[in-house]
C-alpha cells in the first residue's frame, strides 16, 4: 500500500497532464462522432481529483458524478479502457455499457460514474457505512458538483452520514455553474460550505487550482477520520474551461472570467512550483507531456480497433447469476 507522503508530485503532475490530454482528445473524437451520448470534460479541474487521490490510500473508496473520466484515470484505470468506454467497446472500463457518465473500476475501488445529479451521494454513504460495519479504517471520497447540493438525496445523505458518524469526505467540486445556472442563481447560501454546518459536519474551503492545498487539506481530514470515523465536507473552488458538456458553448459566462481562471491554471501552477524548487526541468516536463499525448493517442487507436460487445451477450448483464450459498 502506497502511503500518502510517498506519492511523488511529479507523478501527480503527470496524472494531471494525462487527464488534460485525454479530455482534449475525447473532445476531438466526440466532434468526429466517434463518441456518442453526453460527454462532460474535466479540463481546468485536474488539481481537485489529483490532490484528493494523492491524499488517500489505494484501497479507499472513490465515487463521483458524471464528470468522471478524470476520477477513473486517477484511480489507475488505463487510458485505453477509458477511451474504449467512450467508444462503446467491450474493452471499455464498463464494457461499453456505461458510456462517458458511467465509468467503473471495481478492482481499483472506483465506484462510478453516476449520472443522476445527487443520486450517488446516498450510495457513497452506503460505501462508508460498509467500512464502519466491517470495522475497517478506509475512507470514502464522494465527489459531486455544486449542482448536487440542492438535491434532496444530498441532504438525506449528509444527515445519515452525520447521524451514523461515517468515514466519508464530501467533496464539492464547485466550478460555479450547475450546467448553465450559476451558484448565485441556484443556491441560497453565502458560501456552499455552509451547507455542512446544517448537519453538524465540519467544512473547509479549498483552492481547487492548487494541487498542494487540495492534497494537504484532504490528507489532514482523512487522517482525522481514520483515527475516529466521522464525515467531513470540503468545498473545492475550481473552474471548468469547457462548457457543461460537449453541446454547451458556455455563453452564460464571459471570456474575461474564463481567461482569469486559465491564468491560474492548476497544471501550470504545480509545474512552476516544482520547477522553482528544482524538482522538475523544462525538458522533463516536455517529456511527461509528450508521453501523456502519446498514451492518449494510442488509446484512440486501441479503442478504434477494439470489438464491440457481441449482440448475443445483450442479456448477459441484466441479472447476476446465482445466490450467496
Amino acid at each position: 500500500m502506497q502511503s500518502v507522503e510517498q506519492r511523488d508530485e511529479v507523478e501527480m503532475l503527470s496524472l494531471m497532464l494525462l487527464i488534460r490530454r485525454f479530455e482534449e482528445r475525447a473532445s476531438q473524437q466526440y466532434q468526429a462522432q466517434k463518441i456518442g451520448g453526453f460527454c462532460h470534460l474535466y479540463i481546468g479541474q485536474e488539481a481537485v481529483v489529483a490532490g484528493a487521490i494523492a491524499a488517500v490510500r489505494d484501497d479507499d473508496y472513490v465515487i463521483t458524478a458524471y464528470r468522471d473520466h478524470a476520477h477513473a484515470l486517477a484511480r489507475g484505470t488505463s487510458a485505453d479502457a477509458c477511451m474504449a468506454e467512450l467508444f462503446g467497446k467491450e474493452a471499455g472500463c464498463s464494457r461499453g455499457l456505461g458510456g462517458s457518465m458511467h465509468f467503473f473500476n471495481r478492482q481499483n475501488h472506483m465506484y462510478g460514474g453516476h449520472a443522476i445529479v445527487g443520486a450517488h451521494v446516498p450510495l457513497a454513504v452506503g460505501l462508508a457505512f460498509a467500512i464502519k460495519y466491517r470495522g475497517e479504517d478506509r475512507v470514502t471520497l464522494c465527489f459531486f458538483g455544486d449542482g448536487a447540493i440542492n438535491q434532496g438525496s444530498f441532504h438525506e445523505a449528509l444527515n445519515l452520514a452525520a447521524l451514523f458518524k461515517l468515514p466519508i469526505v464530501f467533496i464539492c467540486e464547485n466550478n460555479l455553474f450547475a450546467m448553465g445556472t450559476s451558484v448565485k442563481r441556484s443556491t441560497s447560501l453565502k458560501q456552499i460550505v455552509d451547507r455542512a454546518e446544517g448537519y453538524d459536519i465540519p467544512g473547509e474551503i479549498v483552492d481547487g487550482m492548487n494541487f498542494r492545498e487540495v492534497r494537504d487539506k484532504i490528507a489532514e481530514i482523512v487522517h482525522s477520520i481514520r483515527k475516529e470515523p466521522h464525515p467531513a465536507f470540503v468545498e473545492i473552488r475550481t473552474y471548468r474551461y469547457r462548457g457543461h458538456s460537449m453541446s454547451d458553448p458556455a455563453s452564460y459566462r464571459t471570456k474575461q472570467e474564463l481567461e482569469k481562471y486559465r491564468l491560474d491554471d492548476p497544471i501550470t501552477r504545480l509545474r512552476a512550483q516544482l520547477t522553482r524548487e528544482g524538482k522538475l526541468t523544462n525538458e522533463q516536463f516536455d517529456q511527461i507531456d509528450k508521453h501523456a499525448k502519446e498514451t492518449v493517442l494510442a488509446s484512440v487507436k486501441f479503442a478504434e480497433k477494439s470489438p464491440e460487445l457481441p449482440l448475443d451477450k445483450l442479456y448477459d448483464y441484466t441479472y447476476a447469476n446465482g445466490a450467496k450459498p
Partner: protein
Amino acid sequence: MREITYRQALNEALAEELERDPDVFLMGEEVAEYNGAYKVSQGLLERFGPRRIIDTPISENGFAGLGVGAAMVGLRPIIEFMTFSFSLVAFDQVVNNAPNMFTMSGGQFNIPITFRGPNGPAHQLGATHSHATEPLYANSPGLKICTPATPRDAKGLLKTAVRDNNPVLVLEAELLYSSKGMVEPPDEELLIPLGRAEVKREGSDVSIICYAQTVRLALATAAKLEEEDISAEIVDLRSIKPLDEKAIFDSVAKTHRVVIVEQDRPFCGVGAEVCYRIQKNVFDELDAPILRVSQEDVPMPYNERLEKAVLPNADKLIAAVKKVCYA
C-alpha cells in the same frame, strides 16, 4: 408443520438470515427500537443489536441509496419500507441505481439487496397510502419481484430474496400480516425459488390467476363457485418477475378459460402482461377471451363504500368467471 402468522413467518425469515450471514443487516424506519411499524422486526434489535438492526430518519431515498451503496461492496442489506407507497420517494434509488448498476458497470457490480414492506391497498388509507407498486417496478429490468400470499411463501421467498445476488422486492401485504398458515418447523430450511408459481387449488373449468392479496379472494370465491358446479383452478403467481409462464400455460391448457384477478390498476397492470403472454403462446388453448378483475382506474377514495367499489371482490370475480365459462 405448525401454524404461524404471516408476520411471524417474515420475522423468522429475517432472524434466520441475520443469524446465518453476518453481511445481512436490516435498516428502515422504526425497525429497531419500535420493533417495526407492523411488528415484523419484533425482537430483532434485542437479539442482533444496533449494529445490524438500524433505525433511520424518514429519508427513504437516503437509506435506500445507502443500502445500494453498501451492497456494491458486498453487504446484503434488507431495506424495509414502512409501506411501498413510501418507496415512491426512493423511486430513483430502486429503479435507477439498484437494477442498473450491474449493466452500467459492465457486470462489475451486482447489487444483492432486498427491499421489503407492505404493498397494495389496505383499508381506508386513501390515495397516497394504497399503491400497488408491482407494475411500476416490473417495468424495470434488473429487478426481481415476489408477492407472497401465505405465511409459508412469505418465509420461503424472503429468505431466497436475501440470498439472491440481485435486487429483489418482497411485496408483502398489510392485510395479510395477521393471517395464519402452515409452515415447516424452524429447524427445517425453507427456501422457495423466485419465479415459481404455485397451484393453490386444483380445478378443471377455469384458471383464476392471482397473486398477493387476491389469492385469498380467489380461494374464497372458488369455494362459492364450487357450489354452482364450476371448478376453479387457483394459480398463485408468487413472483411477478421472473414470471412463471409454464405454470400459467399448463393451467390454461387444462381449463381453457382464464380470469386474472389482480390488486393493481388495469392500465398496464400485471394482468395485462399475463394476458398478452397467454394469447401469444397458447392462443389455441383458449375457449373464451381472457378477462381481468383489477382495481378501478381511479385514485383510491377514502370513503369505505367507494373503496370497496374500487377493489376486486367476489361478486366481480364470480361475474367474470361466469362470463368466460358462458355460464
